[in-house]
Structure formats: structure tokens, C-alpha cells
């Protein structure tokens, strides 16, 4: 037990060090900005995975929270004269509150019904952003004059913003990892597998799911703030079905059963999208193709798939053969 904790601390320290050194490794502004984008989407994917990986609820409207928080912060700063910090806090509150309300509606169903309701809710939020021109600027969106200064640090440069995003991401990751290993996380995973038994064991299945929904909305809203600060702009694109689908694909591609999966998925999708977009204009087709391919050929996702492959390779090595039973998928304890 203690050795495991020490191992986790060492791995966490190494990951932090890696995050801190990344801008030096990458060098140019272009790559640092790309890394910032990866972090923002990784956070979005991690928040969505609270629903998918932990609670077993597939949402197709998760971009709504990213978009609502981004719109709220932009509008409050630009139109209502809020300072950066009050606007950010209010935006998080608004994003989380909408998740609280939408959660009540979507959790009237589970499985496919849940998926459809989240999709409908997401599309309605998109419709409001698109049509309510006097509030949202319609297709033109809302601009943010400047990135705020955080604790006296100006986030104007790519490297400064990267460190801000990395700090927020690390905080979120820590929280989600603690949650995964906590009693609440264990109960939530239980509702995914056997909701009926969980109720018979005295668990409040609906409440557990709703808490997951609200937490997912909260961290999605945090991602929305980062999104706004990064682009200094928000438009209906931020909460489109395409954005929700991309977030979902990140989770599925990386693998929903581990915490690392959504992060890897976010990195792959963000990099491919940027790469493809600089050559051809057919990202949407490629997105569709990856979607179909992942579902048909790689239902587990990259991280669990690789972990399984690694285990099988190890089992092939003669001195290890039969040494350890193939117990528990990698990161099984780390699923949120």
C-alpha cells in the first residue's frame, strides 16, 4: 500500500516536471499553443469521462458546459463590466448550475434515452447561442478584449498561458484522481455496472449520477474558461454537436476506463485536427471516419488496448510466464 502511494507520488512528480519542461522541449510558440489546446481539450475530455467512464452515461451534449461558461464569462466581462475574477466565478457558477438543471432532466432516463436527451439539450443551447443574436452576437460570437492577469502574471504570451493552463489541468487531474480512488468514486463505478444491486445495498443511485453530472459540468465549465482565455473569442462552434462529438471521441479513442485515456485521446485528436486542417478542409469527414473506425475496431480505446498488449508481451517472456495472473486491467483502480 505504502509502496503504491510512493509510486503514485513519483509518477505524479515526473508528470508535473514533464508539464513544466514541455515549453523548452517544444521551443516555438506554435507548438506551445498547441500544447495549451491539448490541455484544454484534455480537461474537457476528463470532465466528460466522469460521466462515461465512471457513471457509464454517454453524453452527446457536453460541449454545452464549455460553451455556457465561455459565453457567460465573455458576456459578463464585455457587456456587464465585471472584473475578470468575478466574471470567471460567475461563469463557473452558471455553467455548473445549468449542469445541475440539465442533469435532473437527462437523468430521467439512462442509456440511449440519456444520450438523446443530452444531445437535444446541447442542440438547444447551441440554437440559443446561434439565434439569440442580441445576447450572444449570433454567428459572430463574442470577443474578449484581453486575457486576464492571474495573481499579477500576464497571460498574454503563449508560454505564460501554457503554464496557467497546465496548473489548472494539474489541479483538475489531482481532484479527479482522488475522486476515482475515493468511496464516492467507488460507489459511482458501482452504479455503472449494477444500478439495481447498488440500490438494494442502500446506495442513492440517482444522486450519485447527478453528482457526477454536476461535477462533469463544473470541470467542463473550467475548460470553457480556459477555452475563452485562449481564443479570446467564443462562437456557437464552441457548443456545437461537432464539439461535443469531438470530446466524446477523445474519451472513446483514448479509452474511458482509465484517467490517462481521455488525455491521450485529446492529444491525438487535437494534433490530428491541427495537422489535417493545415492541409485539407475535410476535418469533418475524417472525424466521422475515425468515429466509425474507433467504434468498430478499437472499442476499448488506445490506453487499455496498449496496456493489454503490453501485458500479453510480458506474459510471453519466459522468466515471467505464469508469474502473475492477468488480474485487473491497467489503471483499473484509477478509473474516475
Amino acid at each position: 500500500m505504502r509502496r503504491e502511494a510512493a509510486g503514485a507520488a513519483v509518477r505524479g512528480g515526473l508528470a508535473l516536471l514533464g508539464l513544466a519542461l514541455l515549453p523548452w522541449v517544444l521551443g516555438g510558440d506554435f507548438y506551445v499553443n498547441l500544447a495549451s489546446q491539448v490541455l484544454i481539450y484534455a480537461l474537457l475530455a476528463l470532465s466528460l469521462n466522469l460521466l462515461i467512464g465512471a457513471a457509464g452515461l454517454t453524453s452527446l451534449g457536453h460541449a454545452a458546459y464549455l460553451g455556457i461558461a465561455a459565453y457567460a464569462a465573455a458576456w459578463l466581462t464585455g457587456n456587464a463590466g465585471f472584473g475578470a475574477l468575478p466574471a470567471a466565478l460567475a461563469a463557473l457558477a452558471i455553467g455548473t448550475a445549468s449542469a445541475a438543471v440539465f442533469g435532473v432532466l437527462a437523468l430521467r432516463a439512462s442509456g440511449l434515452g440519456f444520450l438523446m436527451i443530452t444531445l437535444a439539450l446541447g442542440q438547444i443551447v447551441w440554437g440559443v447561442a446561434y439565434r439569440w443574436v442580441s445576447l450572444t452576437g449570433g454567428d459572430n460570437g463574442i470577443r474578449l478584449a484581453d486575457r486576464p492577469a492571474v495573481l499579477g502574471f500576464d497571460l498574454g504570451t503563449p508560454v505564460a498561458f501554457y503554464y496557467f493552463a497546465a496548473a489548472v489541468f494539474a489541479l483538475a487531474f489531482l481532484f479527479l484522481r482522488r475522486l476515482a480512488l475515493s468511496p464516492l468514486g467507488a460507489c459511482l463505478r458501482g452504479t455503472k455496472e449494477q444500478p439495481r444491486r447498488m440500490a438494494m445495498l442502500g446506495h442513492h443511485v440517482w444522486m450519485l449520477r447527478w453528482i457526477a453530472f454536476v461535477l462533469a459540468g463544473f470541470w467542463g465549465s473550467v475548460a470553457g474558461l480556459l477555452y475563452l482565455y485562449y481564443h479570446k473569442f467564443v462562437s456557437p462552434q464552441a457548443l456545437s454537436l461537432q464539439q461535443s462529438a469531438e470530446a466524446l471521441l477523445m474519451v472513446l479513442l483514448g479509452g474511458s476506463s482509465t484517467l490517462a485515456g481521455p488525455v491521450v485521446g485529446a492529444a491525438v485528436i487535437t494534433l490530428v485536427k491541427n495537422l489535417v486542417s493545415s492541409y485539407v478542409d475535410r476535418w469533418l469527414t475524417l472525424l466521422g471516419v475515425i468515429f466509425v473506425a474507433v467504434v468498430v475496431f478499437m472499442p476499448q480505446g488506445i490506453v487499455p488496448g496498449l496496456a493489454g498488449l503490453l501485458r500479453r508481451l510480458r506474459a510471453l517472456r519466459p522468466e515471467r510466464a505464469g508469474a502473475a495472473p492477468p488480474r485487473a486491467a491497467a489503471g483499473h483502480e484509477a478509473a474516475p
Partner: protein
Amino acid sequence: MQFWLIQTLNSLALGGLLFLLSSGFSLIFGLQRIPNLAHGALFMLGAYIGTSLLAREVDFWLAAPLAGVLVGLLGVALERLVLRRLAGNEQGQVLVTLGVAFIIADLCLLVWTGDPIPVPAPEGLRRPVFLFGFAFPTYRLVVLGIAVAAAIGLFLLMERTRLGAMIRAGVDDPEMARGVGIRVSGLFTTVFCLGVALAGTAGVLGGPILSAYPGLDADMLPLALVVVILGGVGSLLGAFVGSFVVSSIYNFGTALFPDLAYVILFLPMVLALVFKPEGLFGRVRA
């Protein structure tokens, strides 16, 4: 007065289109447990195919069913080649239909470009008819008539034919239907093809009202979703009533409160979810 009459007729015409779209969606969902998220994209594809056929001087009344057949064949391919491989993996099937929706939408953009393509109403239906001193757009009345005829046809198909009996059995209790030896696989393909073909035909019929433009898919899919959540999964009657409720709310909402049309659209769905989650006419929970 003229405003209310015209808006009512617009609502009824849109409701007719919506019924053609959502009845197929609802039946496929009820029978196969697949909310076909490509349904909006297939509606749009139908609309675009219609514009190309019309541009080649094909008669409108031939173009509509022809586009339906083409879209239906695409549906058969999708069902047989992809969805079939994922039998038992409901979530996988949904996600695949979403992926296909993106591919179709993007390819439509590639082929038919980003500019909206207006579709003229068929010859002879372009001039309004005058009733009780008011002018009515003739084509919309015809669309409403077609939708009602289609509804009656579908009701008869469901209530009076062997195929309909099998579909009803499958919607009510899929396990039982398999148990009594209904050839589910053939039934699935038939219903998927039929539902998708209806969407394609509706796309062409909707052309003169909505025209064909990128984003038509994203506009239509949520409407169909709300219809089905409201009317109940797998229920034709629910789809019928739901279509006209949703189209009226949407139409009057857009006309009276253009900013808030989507919020208004959302209200009946919220009420339905809170008070009757299985939908107004559904037996299966969404």
C-alpha cells in the same frame, strides 16, 4: 388574421415534413434500439439529390421518390455493412450513425458547395389558392396532404399487414419477437431502409419550403429528437401528434419571439420529461 392563418398553415406543412422525418426515426429507434443520428443528414442528402435531379430536368414528383430510393439504398448498405457488425452494442451503433452523419454532411458540402440551393415548387403549385378571401400557398397544402396520406399508409401498414404486426411485436418486446421466430434481421433492414427512405423523400419535399443548405441536418435532427422524446419511442401516433405540436411551437416561436425560438421549443420537452418520461404515446422509455 392573415398572419395567423399563414403561420398555422406553415406549421402544418412543417409538421408534415417533420412527421415524415420522425416517424422513420421513431420506428427504427423503437425496433432496433438505434437512435439514428444520421437521420438529419440523410434528410439533407435527400434534399441535395433532389436539387441535382431537378437540375437534370427530372420531374419533381419523380425526383422525390427517386431520392428516397437512393437514400434508402444507402441506408441498407449502412445497416448491413456497419450496424449489423455491432449488433448488441447499442451505444456503438449510435456513435457510428453520428460518424456517418458527419461524413455525409461534409461530403454534401464538398459536392454541392456551401451556398444554399433554392428549390422551386413544382409547376402548377406555385400560385396561391384563394379560400374565404385568403391566399394560401398551394404547395404547403399539398405537402400537408402528402404527410397525412403517408400517415394513413403507415397506420394501415402497421395495423393491417403481417410486416406491421411483426414491427409492433418487435417494438413491444424484442426478446419475445425473436423467441417466436420473427426473422429479425430481415425486418431490421426493411424498417431501416423504409425509415431512411422516408427521410430522403421528405428532404426533397421540404426543398421548396426550406431549400437545401449546409446545416439543414443540424436544424432538422433536434426537431426530430424533440418529437420522439415528446411523442414516445416507436409510436406512430406519438410521432404524428408530436410533429404538429413541435412544428407549431417552432413556427410561432420563430415568428413571434425569433430570439427565443429554441428555448420555446425546449419547454414541451422539459414538461414531457418531468411528467411523462415515456412520452405522450410511448410504452417504451426513451
